[in-house]
């Protein structure tokens, strides 16, 4: 059982610790573009009240379905509202939902996963519950929750987050289960470290990298689900400007004015694509197995 080692003398004792920073964001041009796109969408969403040319909720029946013009850069919708302003505002809900779902599902999933990874009897119960939740298609679960408890921002956020929790919990659990077999965890047990200390110091750090990656995926998937809910008419109430709502209203006029669907669709796709690309880049930068694979190539 010879393990590949370099001769003792050939390892310099002075090399610096290699901890991945945010450098991966500029590692490839595509990732850099994705980062810039996402930053731009975030900025525009924050600044929406100041940079929007019109009030996104203002009804103007006289201005229905106007084509693009100097006054309305992207035209108006069926109620005469300015589409550009609605799109600028629409990013706020999407980003809020994406970020909220990522944070909440990670906090809850981490707790469930850590405990399940360590206590067998809790594990048996929790994993059955997680399996059950995962068996329900997430859209169905979300629309059922929203239809019963009313479509507010909070209920939509909860409805979108619930189906993401099992994925996070399972991920954390599998990391904990494999990490606790590591000899360094056994070594910590034999030097008398307490269970909370072992969890905090030796197990938790292993979950950080996968959770960052999973967080970006949850974020992307939550933005998508919110848009689908709105699109199906089961999301936040239609007068609130969200990308999904703009498209839902545009459905009826698709043959006359397809831009009502394409512009918000484009923004939505770019936002999700950017988050996904950044997630992939983070995974490649954080996952030592991937790095090793690249190294051996």
């Amino acid at each position: 059982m010879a393990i590949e080692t370099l001769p003792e003398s050939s390892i310099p004792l002075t090399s610096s610790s290699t901890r991945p920073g945010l450098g991966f964001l500029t590692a490839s041009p595509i990732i850099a573009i994705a980062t810039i796109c996402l930053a731009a969408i975030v900025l525009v969403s924050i600044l929406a009240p100041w940079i929007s040319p019109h009030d996104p909720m203002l009804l103007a029946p006289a201005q229905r379905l106007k084509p693009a013009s100097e006054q309305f850069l992207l035209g108006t919708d069926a109620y005469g509202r300015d589409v550009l302003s609605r799109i600028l505002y629409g990013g706020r809900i999407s980003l809020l939902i994406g970020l909220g779902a990522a944070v909440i599902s990670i906090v809850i999933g981490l707790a469930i996963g850590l405990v399940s990874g360590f206590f067998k009897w809790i594990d048996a119960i929790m994993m059955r519950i997680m399996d059950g939740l995962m068996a329900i298609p997430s859209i169905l679960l979300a629309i059922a929750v929203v239809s019963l408890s009313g479509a507010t921002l909070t209920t939509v956020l909860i409805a979108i987050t619930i189906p993401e929790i099992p994925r996070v919990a399972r991920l954390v659990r599998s990391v904990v289960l494999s990490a606790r077999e590591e000899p360094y965890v056994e070594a910590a047990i034999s030097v008398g470290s307490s269970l909370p200390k072992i969890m905090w110091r030796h197990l938790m750090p292993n979950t950080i990298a996968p959770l960052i990656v999973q967080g970006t995926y949850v974020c992307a998937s939550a933005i998508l689900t919110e848009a689908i809910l709105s699109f199906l008419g089961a999301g936040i109430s239609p007068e609130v400007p969200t990308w999904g709502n703009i498209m839902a209203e545009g459905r009826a006029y698709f043959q006359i004015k397809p831009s009502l669907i394409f512009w918000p669709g484009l923004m939505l796709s770019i936002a999700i694509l950017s988050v996904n690309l950044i997630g992939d880049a983070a995974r490649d930068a954080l996952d030592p197995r991937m790095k090793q694979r690249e190294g051996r190539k």
Partner: protein
Amino acid sequence: MSTVPSSRPVALDIRDLVVRLGKGPTADKIIDGVSLQVREGETLCVVGESGSGKSVTSLTVMGLLQKGALVPSAGSVRLVGEELLIASDKRLRQLRATTMAMIFQEPMTALNPVVPVGRQIDEVLRVHTGLDAKARQQRILAMMEQVRLPDVKRIFKSYPHQLSGGQRQRIMIAMALVLEPKLLIADEPTTALDVTTQKQILSLIRELQKDHGTAVLFITHDMGVVAEIADRVMVMRQGRIVETGALDDILRAPKMEYTRNLLASVPSLVPRTPRPASSEPVVLETSGLGKIYRERSFFGTAREVAAAQDVTLTLRKGRTLGIVGESGSGKSTVARCIVRLIDPTSGEVRLRGSEISTLSRQLLRPHRKHIQIVFQDPYRSLNPRVTVGETIAEGPINYGVPRAEALKRAGELLELVDLPADAISRYPHQFSGGQRQRIAIARALALDPDVLVADEAVSALDVSVQAQVLELLDEIQTRLGIALLFITHDLRVAAQICDEVVVMQHGRVVEQGPAGEILTHPQQAYTRQLLEAAPGRGWDFANFQPVAPELQASAASPAE
């Protein structure tokens, strides 16, 4: 050892081979000017430690280097006169299995797990011959018999996981030799096997070579194996040849310093002079210790596997007790039960007189500090995210030592294990395997334990590093009077470090007693078998001479 007459044709001729890490003239050289010849019927052993480039050399011949990563950039490789470095992919595929074949280190992973082994051999014949199904099967079964597989018809249809490690390696050999290639490359083919299996495989390769006149390029890190199988030896280090010569010349009169050191690092199988019997207090005792695993199957019939049974041993202060055995003997189970990483199902463990085998987590805590463990794999036994200092200080801090004091002590311990004190603020990945094992030892010593359990603690290390770590353990024992429980599969290591040994097989103790007695006058057949299987047992490598006959284990005197 027979010498092969120089009139036999050369099967493999490598001249001034250079392999670089990537394309381009400035890329690092992994192989730097290696030349070698292997004649038909001859075995050339390429020996070296990790990173010596011995495996890269063999993969270059087979044309199996990962494309674009390792690039042969100069020299020539001729197989029966044909240049391989410029051969097309198609030509190389034709030559593989027909003219050159290879067997690998891990028979566990070298066979496709989802295809029956017979079909895997059959694939070779289907690709390279026009034989019909019946003729192919006959030939395969005949070959399987040649490699001494039992019940060949059944094994033909078996999947790899249904066979033992030795059987799998025999399948690999059958697959490699079924088309009678001129050259066989064997890359550490017995390293993953137990000694008794290793012995059988080595003699099988020798025998088949004699029958078929095959040229064998045998790659190994183990001087014992070299002594068993080589006609000629080539020593490599960091991609270069150190020296080449006939087996006897290399073992008796190595010319180069590196070869001398390499040979001097091989522990002798002749036990060291026994230390006087000790009357120091007993620090660790087990009686009737056992561990049974119960596997619950669905219909209630529980299957029981006894990983260890009825193990009774005694360890005194300042002494070293070895537990030796092959894989599956239960030696590691015993160690883990003693340290209470797993809970024994029967028997007692008395640490400094206190029974600890059934204590709860809480009650066990005060006892834990008296017994510490060092694991086999130095790459996994240190948390990569925690500094060396914090790792060593973790134990003392758990037992109430103030942080600053614990870190100061960690610095002292690093010096004790011959590492610079400034290693304290670095992370494990900045250290080599041997250095990491020293850190792991420092961590274990930080709690001033009475007993140190070393579970295969030097098995993953290169032989020269292994020698240093063994020396360190010896020194620490002399200085601190610590008791060592040493788990190993390597009889050579046991012979050099243990006062007493316990030989285990299938979870039971076969024989126990003073190391000098057991390893020279074994009473049990199994112990004798183990000793006889130890590769290179006829050589005292460190003294560049064969073992004097009177010191050899008296295998011939069965004392039933």
